[in-house]
């Protein structure tokens, strides 16, 4: 086995572990942190089905962002929607035979990559052109966009400029999944693309990308507006042990 293959094999196992364990840890932490008070941003739904509806439109259409700023919404929504198609398209490298619906979205995913890079470019441009956004941008905000754009461009590069051996790539990833390791093709564009993807997976649980799980735990969005009908307990959301400790403290 080549050094390259060994390096990428280890890298993707490590990146996957960090991504999954890191996110699981963070989500668990969010779930176990108490919500001392009711703080939905009103007007808010008064029932749980209403909250589910609010959250659904928030995460699929970015409702609040749409109310706020049409440019950020446009770039942000295009990027996220395109990313979804791009990710779905990539399922073909992890399934054999390829699921039929993945085959169906496959052509869309190809063009979605352009939309994804365009959306990211729009968001990055705002960080230079709008004085308020320039002021709040730190180095990591720029680097995150650079990373995503680089992933998009290297992906597009393989699609339209220097085709890579996708059969071998697929064999490599299926090999990872079934612990039957296969060689990683030595192709600069491909290796760069995968290196950046692994980097993204590693920084995910330690960065602002936590907004992805975070939005589901945001009390201003996920609480129902019914405090008079249903008494909210200050320990709500806390783990049982924490709740007992807090109750003992307050007595």
């Amino acid at each position, binding site marked *: 086995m080549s050094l390259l293959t060994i390096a990428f094999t280890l890298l993707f196992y490590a990146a996957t572990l960090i991504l999954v364990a890191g996110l699981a840890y963070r989500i668990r932490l969010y779930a176990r942190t108490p919500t001392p008070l009711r703080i939905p941003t009103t007007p808010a739904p008064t029932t749980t089905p209403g909250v589910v509806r609010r959250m659904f439109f928030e995460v699929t259409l970015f409702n609040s962002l749409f109310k706020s700023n049409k440019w950020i919404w446009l770039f942000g929504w295009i990027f996220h929607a395109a990313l979804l198609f791009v990710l779905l398209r990539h399922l073909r490298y992890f399934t054999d035979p390829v699921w039929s619906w993945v085959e169906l979205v496959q052509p869309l995913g190809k063009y979605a990559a352009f939309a994804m890079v365009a959306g990211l470019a729009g*968001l990055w441009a705002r960080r230079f052109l709008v004085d308020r956004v320039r002021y709040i941008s730190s180095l990591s905000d720029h680097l995150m966009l650079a990373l995503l754009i680089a992933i998009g461009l290297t992906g597009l590069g393989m699609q339209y400029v220097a085709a890579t051996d996708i059969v071998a790539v697929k064999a490599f990833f299926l090999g990872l999944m079934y612990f039957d390791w296969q060689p990683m093709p030595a192709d600069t564009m491909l290796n760069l693309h995968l290196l950046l993807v692994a980097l993204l997976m590693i920084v995910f649980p330690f960065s602002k990308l936590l907004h992805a799980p975070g939005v589901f735990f945001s009390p201003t969005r996920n609480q129902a507006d019914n405090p008079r009908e249903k008494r909210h307990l*200050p320990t709500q959301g806390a783990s049982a042990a924490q709740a007992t400790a807090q109750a003992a403290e307050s007595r």
Partner: protein
Amino acid sequence: MADFETPTLKPYPVIPAIEIGSMAHSQPFVAKEDHQQKLGFPGELVDDWENVAVKKLGELVDKSRALRVFLDSCVKCGACTDKCHYYLGTSDPKNMPVARQDLLRSVYRRYYTLAGKYFPSLVGARDMDKSVLDEWYSYFHQCSQCRRCSVYCPYGIDTAEVSMAAREIMDTVGVGQKYCNEIIGKAQTIGNNLGLPEPALADTLEGLEEDIEEETGVVVRMPLDEEGADILLVTPSADFFAEPHVDGLIGYAKVFHQAGLSWTLSSYASEAANFGMFIGSYDNMQKLALRIREAALELGVKRIVFGECGHAWRVAYNFLNTLAGPFDFLDPDYPVPQHICEVTYDLLQRGALKMDPSANDDMVVTFHDSCNIARGSRMGDFEGGQLVIPRAVIKASCNHFVDMPADAIGEGTFCCGGGGGLLTDDLVELRVKGALPRMEALHEVTEHHGVTHLAAICAICKSQFSKILPYYGFEMDQVVSIHQLVSNAIQLDGQQAQ
């Protein structure tokens, strides 16, 4: 008037270019030792305060899912940057909600995240030091906790939660704000923010009863500490004291009288406002809330009704049940608590009140949605009732009503500029500048629809507008209470023709 320039009203709202540091000098007076100690906080900056502050921050994050999720989730998209009235009025970029949060987030990152521990400059993480504390003191007292940013944030990040946490940390290390902490002390010992003792209260109410009788010829009572009354009215103490608040109180009394409802005020719980929320102190907020429970038990009432107030109603509606409940000793047929507008609205719906809206024909009225009512509470039994019910009460009381532009009312309403514990003369520059977006909206309807009066539903809004309207060329008495309009229009049985 003062050593700053009042912003000029533009014909349409403009997002200003940033002016770094333009409000860095704005700081409220620091709480004195005894104000601090009364609330259980140290009297002055404690030894090793940097570590105490960092440790407190960690505790707060562990205790609040909101804080933890908000500190982690911001992607710096910029959606909130033009939403804060203090930014729009001052151009100081640290008054952009995200930048205000970052004052605290930078410290959180430094001590509680991997990235901040090892790559501080990459993610903008900062050590907790005196310059950071000074910035906190300045800019976390330039947030009125109005939640406008939380409406527009794609993750619902509410800067109010962040500024409450920052204020609690500052209190914990001994640097509290005089205005809030002095007032909380008064409310916890005397029973109200103004420090009015029972005899003064009784005297005031007696005087008001005489005024009403003189004006209408009808005896309308203002009961205090009356055991066995059905309703306990808890209202901001400004209602006992200042115009136009007191006209609102007269309005509530007339509504109760005409509907034949038995009610009382309590001298023990003579304050609806709960400044414990402003400083983010659960314990102090709970102490104040428990006074209301105790008064309700003592007087043996069946219902609790709140007068016109903004943050008070948020605490009452959202938190009272948690802080001081359960209220199973009250009449289960009524929500606990109720807002006076809900009471009046229900009576109007049932046709139980006779109104003559022409009594307010000298006014063209518009309505200022109070931030914490619009975005932090509800009225009635349907989503958005807090926006509908006050308007319905106003429209039943006057013939000429016009709303301000849509982006300045409803869930997008602008704060009056004085909420969140900032209603103090040492912050008058901030208050004047922060009122700019509301003044522009008011100017618009004044020019195009001949609006003469601004109805408000919150004691802070009313006090703030009385103070700052003249800076913008309006008259201070252009602000009115909703129940002042009700008071003018309601027809009492046996009332003399005017």
